């Protein structure tokens, strides 16, 4: 199964890296670049939701921490770019650790609320700490990424870098799922009490996955900042947290490929439906609600099952460890 997934991943990578040859329009490349960054966030979130049974509504804050730490340190203080991205990941990981330790011991919705509260705090600080962050009008002049004299200064050039990182995260996630840790997480998502009885330190795993997902979001944020060279608080509001959660839910929690297509679909769809910008918020709310009410195992697997062709990727119930079964 792991092998099959890796072949799919190879095919996916081949298509992705061949695409720029056919796309002349830079705007299309930019949209795909944003999709790559969203996938990076969503892959981590999918692990958290599908395997640790926890939902975070604060990933925009981790995404934002990565972006702002990178932006401020490299632009204002002249730090070198790549080590700063790593530093941002470490700092964000420590913050997530501090939030996760107390809240992951409690019922699931406490993490939802704690992360959401954290998101609001980070957002307020971004706006109010004007001398450092540039306030509501944003932070500009962020240096572009470069490696060995090669500057990633166009949508086309950075496309390959962003997608390489993004596909790398998919590979990492696949390896993780099919490792000892992955099997422990699968057990944890099936039945936490049983997993504990089998000697799995479920709390530690939950915290680890949460930190990993925050670190991936931070990396995406840093890359975003150095790619667009301009960031403003609006990008990192609670709505983005909600968008990435919706992407995971649409694709199906615990389903890596589902998340991938959820992220692609929900990044490309609003671009295609430019006319309905006014209804964007309503649209997300309705998608989220409909997906959860009728297809709690994911919109794609659910629709496939309804169409009677649910066997495309194995039955959704047996293949995926479904988390969130700890209702009290």
């Amino acid at each position, binding site marked *: 199964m792991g092998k099959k997934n890796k072949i799919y991943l190879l095919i996916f990578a081949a298509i992705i890296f061949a695409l720029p040859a056919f796309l002349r329009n830079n705007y299309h490349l930019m949209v795909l670049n944003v999709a790559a960054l969203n996938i990076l966030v969503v892959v981590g979130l999918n692990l958290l939701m599908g395997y640790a*049974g*926890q*939902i975070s*509504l604060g990933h925009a804050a981790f995404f934002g921490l990565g972006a702002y730490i990178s932006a401020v340190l490299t632009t204002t203080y002249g730090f070198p770019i790549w080590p700063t991205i790593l530093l941002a990941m470490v700092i964000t990981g420590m913050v997530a650790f501090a*939030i996760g330790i*107390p*809240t992951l*011991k*409690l*019922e*699931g*919705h*406490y993490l*939802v*609320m*704690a992360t*959401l*509260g*954290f998101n*609001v*705090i980070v957002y*307020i*600080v971004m706006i*109010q700490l004007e001398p450092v962050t540039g306030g509501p009008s944003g932070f500009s002049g962020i240096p572009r990424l470069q490696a060995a004299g090669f500057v990633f200064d166009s949508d086309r050039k950075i496309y390959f870098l962003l997608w390489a990182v993004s596909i790398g995260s998919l590979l990492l996630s696949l390896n993780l799922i099919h490792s000892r840790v992955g099997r422990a997480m699968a057990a944890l998502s099936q039945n*936490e*009490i049983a997993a*504990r009885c089998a000697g799995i330190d*479920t709390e530690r795993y939950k915290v680890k996955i949460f930190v990993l997902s925050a670190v991936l979001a931070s990396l995406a944020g840093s890359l975003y900042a150095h790619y667009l060279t301009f960031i403003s608080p609006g990008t990192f509001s*609670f709505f983005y947290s*909600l968008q990435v*959660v919706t992407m995971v*839910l649409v694709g199906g929690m615990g389903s890596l490929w589902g998340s991938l297509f959820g992220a692609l679909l929900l990044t490309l769809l609003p671009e295609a439906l430019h006319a309905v910008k*006014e*209804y*964007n*918020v*309503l*649209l*997300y*709310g*309705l*998608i*989220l*609600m*409909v*997906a*959860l*009410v*009728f*297809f*709690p*195992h994911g919109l794609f697997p659910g629709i496939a099952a309804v169409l009677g062709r649910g066997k495309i990727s194995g039955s959704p119930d047996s293949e995926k460890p479904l988390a*969130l*079964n*700890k*209702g*009290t």
Partner: protein
Amino acid sequence: MTFGLQLFQFLLSGLTTGSTYALIAIGFSLIHNATGIVNFAQGEFVMLGGMFMITYYSSLKLPMVLAFFLTLFSVSLIGLLLERGPIRQARSKEILILVMITVGASISIKGLSMVLWGKNAMTLSSFSGDAPLLLWGAAIMPQSIWIFAITLMVVVGLHYFFQGTMTGKAMRAVAASRRTAVLTGIPVDRMILLSFTLSGALGAAAGIILTPITTTSYDVGVMLGLKGFSAAILGGYGSMPGAVLGGLLLGVLESLAAGLVSSEYKDALAFLILLAVLFFKPTGILGRGRLRRV
């Protein structure tokens, strides 16, 4: 103005907003006790309360009392529909799924309100003028007195409802143990429906009395909901006296922080308190230890 008087002034304004937080927190507790879920759309009920009141009272020029009750009715109906629709129809009854459904409902209500009422902030005139009254040297707005009075009436009314009526006792029984409640013949489904309807009414009441002071717009719901939630956690989640205490305390702390430290970070305080309570005493001030620890 002496420092003591200044503190008194902060206390008054803190208790004013704190009263509305208390109403929102009670709404959270009602639904939590009946179902075990956090109703994320609670803040949207507050926003809708303000919006409907503006529509009925300012736009349609209905008499104030009629507009007031019509607003309560409208938002209660939305609470009812939320339960009858998405929550009741949900294929999965896992707590976290249900919570996320209310998140979806909250965003949908927000998006629809943006389409219906536009993006601009809307105002509602005070119930009885804006001339401040003096209370031991501190200024108090007539609207604050309305807020205290209506909050007090609601709390007393709810207390009577839960202690003195059969329906209220049945709701408490559901909160204590759903299974036992079913066995004793209590229509649990109807109690859940009632909790959503009541929460809608409570949110609406909070929105109506708060809007003349703060104005409203389609996007205030999330913030108000989160503050109500923080208040509920602070007081002890699921406890009625806890919700009132948490609401008032949060209001006063916010007002003091805004007055003495910095008004820019006022909104962040509620969440710092939320995180701090979750870290150190997740059961809150009046809560009993009933939190899951495997």
